[in-house]
């Protein structure tokens, strides 16, 4: 093969190998990019953090149905359910509901609940001013606890959203944390 042709292969092949490496890196970059994309577009149903209850005018002309569902992740063995399955509220009205959690295991465990709101369009308008989801919950064997959630539905909730569903997934994070037993 002529030398000139060989040199030309070299440069192109280097560029193509670089492109290969770049695309491999891109595949891994997709992992953080995934979160960035969700943050920017807000299309992931995540609730924007705890918020102080703003003094919102109560909108009595409108009723919004708020439903509560729970599930345990994978091998989490706790009993976990809402004390009311659904409730009708007015936007601007501060409401308190309770969830029950019980540790049936023979050893102390730590659980953490992660919330999600559906439809994800409505997540921005659902403000939880007090929520057990911000804390890691330690339960002794057999211990049962009632956990409150205080929330306000924003008066600016789009008119076509008539039902909001608050879902909690309970994770077992005992391994990830050192369990401090009570007393």
């Amino acid at each position, binding site marked *: 093969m002529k030398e000139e042709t060989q040199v030309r292969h070299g440069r192109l092949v280097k560029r193509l190998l670089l492109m290969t490496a770049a695309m491999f890196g891109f595949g891994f970059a997709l992992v953080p990019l995934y979160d960035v994309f969700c943050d920017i*577009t807000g299309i992931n149903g995540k609730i924007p953090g705890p918020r102080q209850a703003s003094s919102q005018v109560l909108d009595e002309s409108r009723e919004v149905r708020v439903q509560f569902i729970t599930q345990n992740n994978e091998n989490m063995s706790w009993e976990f359910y809402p004390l009311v399955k659904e409730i009708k509220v007015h936007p601007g009205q501060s409401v308190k509901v309770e969830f029950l959690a019980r540790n049936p295991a023979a050893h102390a465990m730590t659980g953490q609940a992660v919330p999600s709101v559906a439809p994800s369009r409505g997540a921005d308008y659902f403000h939880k001013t007090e929520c057990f989801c911000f804390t890691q919950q330690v339960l002794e064997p057999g211990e049962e606890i009632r956990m409150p959630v205080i929330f306000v539905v924003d008066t600016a909730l789009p008119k076509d959203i008539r039902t909001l569903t608050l879902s909690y997934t309970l994770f077992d994070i005992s391994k990830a944390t050192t369990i401090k037993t009570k007393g």
Partner: protein
Amino acid sequence: MSAVVDDSHIHEHHGPAKGLGRWLFTTNHKDIGSMYLWFSFSMFLLGGTMAMVIRAELFQPGLQLVDPNFFNQMTTMHGLIMIFGAVMPAFVGLANWMLPMMIGAPDMALPRMNNWSFWILPFAFMLLLSTLFMEGGAPNFGWTSYAPLSTTYGPPSTIFFILSVHMMGVSSIMGAINVIATVLNMRAPGMTLMKMPMFAWAWLITAFLLIAVMPVLAGAITMLLMDIRFGTSFFNAAGGGDPVMYQHIFWFFGHPEVYIMILPAFGIVSHVIPTFARKKLFGYTSMVYAIGSIAFLSFLVWAHHMFTVGMPLAGELFFMYATMLIAVPTGVKVFNWITTMFRGALTFETPMLFACAFVILFSIGGFSGLMLAIAPADFQYHDSYFVVAHFHYVLVPGAVFSIFAAVYYWLPKWTGHMYDEALGKTHFWLSFIGVNLTFFPMHFVGLAGMPRRIPDYALQFADFNQVASIGAFLFGASQFLFLILLIKCVRAGRRASAQVWEGAEGLEWTVPSPAPYHTFTTPPKVV
């Protein structure tokens, strides 16, 4: 069919090496092409056998022949072997054989890397197939390997599957680099890009797609490996990860992958139809731009495989519109092939039969694809047999038929013998009937609600499943006719001239048949 009789005897001063070493160490694109093709055909028969197991179990309702876990291994391995072992290596083999001759080059750009690209494959597939005999069995989670089914609940052999796919990826990427370097750097003087044969254009663009997305697959399966072995949580919600993210990363590779499996087919058909219509390909420029547009758009549609995961409306709409858009350049190609045939002087030798069947049946596959593209409708079709019908239509009477067309078309050039035309036509008609009997009923059972990847089904699906299984057995058996034809042709047959087909055009038809071991050692002048 009359072929131009013109032949000059070329005396080889040195031929290929003798014995096994010839094949282990060859850097010759013709030898490597032949190895790829034989390898792909044997994988086709192996993957086909797995399909026979699947269809035998599905012949009747009830679980008669295999247990569900083994059935799942069959569906998984069938997919992996057909995609990575049959279709892709066949196209690479055709590229190896034909691209240098088509562009007037003496060989591929990087002949030694070419050898390695091939030889990785038998080892990769030995590793993959060995998982069938490992404790826990072979991968059983579908070729798409969704997490956490593959990570948390997969068999111990999963990590071997991951390694094997890595090897296949390396082979594909190196092959793609070779194709690009060859096509961009080694065209004969006078052959500008817009004078290149369509198969060369198709492969040039396919090669870029391969380099862009095979590394992403490598990343995805590496993340699977890390979740399985190294305690990471890419796809584990409990650790802060997201199973849906696997689907996004996988299908970012997966969608361009299916175009990787069809663009070379488009190239082949753009050679065969003009030859047997004795008429130039209609709209060369638009055909090139169409392939480019399809390749570009293929990066923007991946989530149409995920319409039901809970994407927001904006996402569903975007991917729906983008997917529908791909039908436009594809339609341009189909219309151009038909226009090429219009008022042509047509004869229907076996390659032309396969090419015409391709145009019709691939288009049918495209129609079911358009139906699937409609996001709200897809909520009904997703994970049903309607999807199975769609992709088998575009892959079997699509990609596989184009490979048959190519083999029949170029066999006389490779072997110097005309194949047995009666046997070829028989192979075609049996395959055509078999393929339609197998996959058309799947549209109906899919629409009626039969899910995919199941070893047993509700009674109302029984009749169409029985028809599909019979069609599958017919199609499978017909491939042994093809094997017989291939062996016959390699060994003997009516002597083929250089031109072979009356209407064939291109540099490959200017060299003798069989093509000498080394061709175009001096580049031809192209006007």
